[in-house]
């Protein structure tokens, strides 16, 4: 599969998925930059990866587990301290639904 030409609508879709409000000039610039990058990474298509597993962690390693015991967590007022808007109980946000 050769690298897809990225149409503006494709980049606009990616911007929506990324939750980024981008203007038309930036979308056009991104389409250009991403097109060049995708042309470059297209060479990966030529690599024989038959029977090669994806690499997930550099070392074979079982992450240690801890006991399922509750421990002190970040106090509420500390967690809220940097919030742009809060009511001492929760973060205040615009309409979700």
């Amino acid at each position, binding site marked *: *599969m050769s690298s*897809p030409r990225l149409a503006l609508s494709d*980049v606009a879709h*990616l*911007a*929506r*998925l*990324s*939750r*980024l*409000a*981008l203007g038309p000039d*930036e979308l056009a610039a*991104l389409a250009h*930059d*991403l097109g*060049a*990058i*995708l042309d*470059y*990474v297209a*060479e*990966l*298509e030529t*690599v024989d*990866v038959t029977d*090669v*597993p*994806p*690499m*997930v*962690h*550099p*070392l074979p*390693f079982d*992450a*240690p587990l*801890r006991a399922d015991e509750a421990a002190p967590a*970040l106090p509420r007022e*500390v*967690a809220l*301290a*940097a*919030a*742009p*808007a809060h009511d001492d109980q929760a*973060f205040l*946000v*615009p*309409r*979700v639904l």
Partner: protein
Amino acid sequence: MATPPDPTPDTIVAARAALASGALTAEALVAGCLDRIARLDGTLGAFLATDPEGALATARDVDRRRAAGEPLGPLAGIPIAVKDQICTRGLATTAGSKILAGWVPPYDATAVARLRAADAVIIGKTNQDEFAMGSSNESSAFRPAKNPWALDRVPGGSSGGSAAAVAAGLALGALGTDTGGSVRQPASFCGLVGIKPTYGRVSRYGAIAYASSFDQIGPIARTAEDAALILAVIAGQDPLDATSLPTPAPLLPLGASLGGLRVGVPAEYLGDGVSPAVQAAVRQALAVFEDDGATVVPVSLPHTRYAIAVYYLLATAEASSNLARYDGLRYGHRTATPVGDIAELYARTRAEGFGPEVRRRIVLGTFALSAGYYDAYYERAQRVRTLIRRDFDRAFADVDVIATPTSPYVAFALGEKVADPLAMYLADVFTVPASLAGVAALSTPCGFEGGLPIGLQLIGPPLSEPRLLAAADAYQRLTDHHLRRPAPTPEAA
């Protein structure tokens, strides 16, 4: 270049000796660094924040405890700068981004907590490419940093501020983060030692995440011995980082010779695109190794040519996921524009808060993970990553370390590569493979081109930091590149 000798010790080892003998107080040492920062950082742009009160208070406490005969940690009184990608409790941490402007972490990264427990003095937070995405420090949302060796040149990136700070004597050591080369390459450009530890060697807790299967915190310092001292303090398993390895922190090796060391040189790293002066300096370094008893043999890492492509698919994919947390809800920037709903809040906040390079990488990463493209891009890149790792495993069956240039060229000019993102990505061609494989790698000074430092990269198998540091230390005892200093930085007008 003839610089009048400065009586202030400018390595950690020399400073420890001066502090222990009473020739110098920690307060005077730290005050000296703060003074240099005040006079020179307007020109250099190495720091985004400093903590003079906290630093002097820590220093005075170290002096008091030393005078009282109390035990002190191995870095007692030593001024260390911390990259702004790494959380410091009570000290503003931005990751070089406007989206975190003014954010004050409520906790220390584990690496920072360990420095504090070793009685180090955290002197300030250093400048960097935004969210560690860059190779020149030019994508910092705040200002670029300058290379102390030539002020029209970049210090490298993304840990450019950390490297500039140590090279200019504004701190005796620094922490950076290395995802695709961001500790090693700035160390190379600034004539310093920089280590990317084996993945899992140093806890990532409190290191603001860029690409979680690559990120490592690493030291930047003037000498292998200094870098080893810092690594010994920060390394080791951490219950707060499930990917951290149970291996004990590496102990400092001293005075090893290079005799018996088998050094591999991959043909793929010395060819077109590498500056002739860089090639010559690396070959000269290899001659020093051989004279001291090492054997140098050719090796092959045939999948090297795919490394950049693999990296820029995997790292951006991981970044697109990691940076989803910057949503304006709980911390950092939130758009002031009135919005209709939360989706619009996210989209405006993030577009306002992230710079162009970060936006570019998020979109590229989203693409690599998106339905219809995941198998062809992300998953395929993960498989090629395994092949790159197997190249290293095969080579390390025959050699102990692999030697390469750290960068194909010395520090480039400010503005030279900003217009071409792909050209900037290709600057990482020699550092990225070790990041993909998760192995240990360091850079040490090995020469100069036109007055600009050249770095030699030594790559070793996982957990081989002791041998890499011993080799770099032995090499430094036989050479003097690491002893040169840049001309004094002019004070800002």
